[in-house]
């Protein structure tokens, strides 16, 4: 018996056979994944591989949020979409594509750009939030909503040949605002500086990898660190990321301000 009282159908035993073989997943872990729900904010270069892997792995419910439509400049890296989807809603297209990929997953399309006002209601619905968005304001809003509700959260970013990854799954872990304060200025965006397709694929896949660990009830070794990937040099850097006691979002002094 599994703890989440979710049972698998015959077709699912066949479909998930290769991951059911893993000691860390097995039948109980698979049922656990099926009982979980995840909010994916942003269905671009990060969100595309992430959503495909989580749907493929049999995560029970995926909330798919993006307010954009598909543009031809998205296609080199946003592998959920193809030329037939131009000018259509990314959230709707993602729902269709993922439903065809795995009919056992419940999919909810949110065809809007979530912000500080709209995020908390969606965050409250899920077990895990994954930040795949493309701007600092949304990243801070996702962070604040997750910290406020004590919700685990995984964030990645990529521009040019540089990738960054962090995970927050416990109150003592640093939050996004411990790394980048609200007044941080972004000098490079994918629009202004470009980005390599496989790099966002790597970073989105790593988000999926850490997401599966958290959903299975395992710790993520990324938590408490910032992982930086220089794709051009193919070098990884692991930096310790202490929680900032003066952080206005998660810090012990936040209520004083």
């Amino acid at each position, binding site marked *: 018996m599994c703890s989440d009282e979710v049972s698998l159908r015959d077709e699912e035993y066949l479909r998930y056979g290769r991951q059911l073989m893993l000691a860390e997943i097995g039948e109980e872990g698979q049922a656990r994944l099926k009982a979980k729900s995840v909010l994916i904010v942003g269905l671009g270069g990060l969100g595309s591989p992430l959503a495909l892997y989580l749907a493929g792995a049999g995560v029970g419910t995926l909330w798919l949020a993006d307010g954009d439509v598909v543009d031809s400049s998205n296609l080199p890296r946003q592998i959920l979409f193809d030329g037939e989807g131009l000018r259509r809603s990314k959230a709707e297209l993602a729902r269709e594509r993922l439903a065809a990929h795995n009919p056992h997953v419940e999919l909810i399309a949110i065809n809007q750009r979530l912000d500080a006002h709209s995020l908390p209601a969606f965050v409250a619905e899920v077990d895990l939030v994954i930040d795949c968005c493309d701007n600092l304001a949304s990243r801070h809003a996702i962070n604040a909503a997750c910290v406020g509700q004590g919700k685990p959260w995984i964030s990645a970013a990529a521009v040019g040949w540089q990738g960054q990854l962090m995970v927050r799954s416990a109150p003592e872990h640093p939050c996004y605002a411990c790394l980048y304060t609200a007044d*941080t200025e972004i000098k490079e965006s994918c629009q202004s500086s470009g980005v390599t397709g496989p790099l966002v694929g790597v970073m989105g896949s790593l988000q999926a990898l850490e997401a599966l660990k958290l959903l299975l009830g395992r710790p993520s070794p990324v938590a408490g660190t910032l992982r930086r990937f220089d794709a051009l040099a193919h070098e990884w850097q692991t930096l310790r990321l202490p929680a900032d006691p003066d952080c206005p979002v998660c810090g012990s002094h936040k209520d004083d301000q």
Partner: protein
Amino acid sequence: MNIRLNDIELTLPTGQRLTELLAAQEIAPQGVAVALNGAVLPRSRWPETRLNDGDEIHLFTAIAGG
């Protein structure tokens, strides 16, 4: 004293502050994060931070794309 800034060795006046180093290198503080000896240094700690001989500093830009 000698420090390393993004793997380049620099000679600085003893006891120089991190903020003085950023200013001397003409680095706008709003666009970067700082790691000192392998740990990200919260921005709230920057003004009080003095550098020591042998310190390893990594500066990296904030990125938000995806």
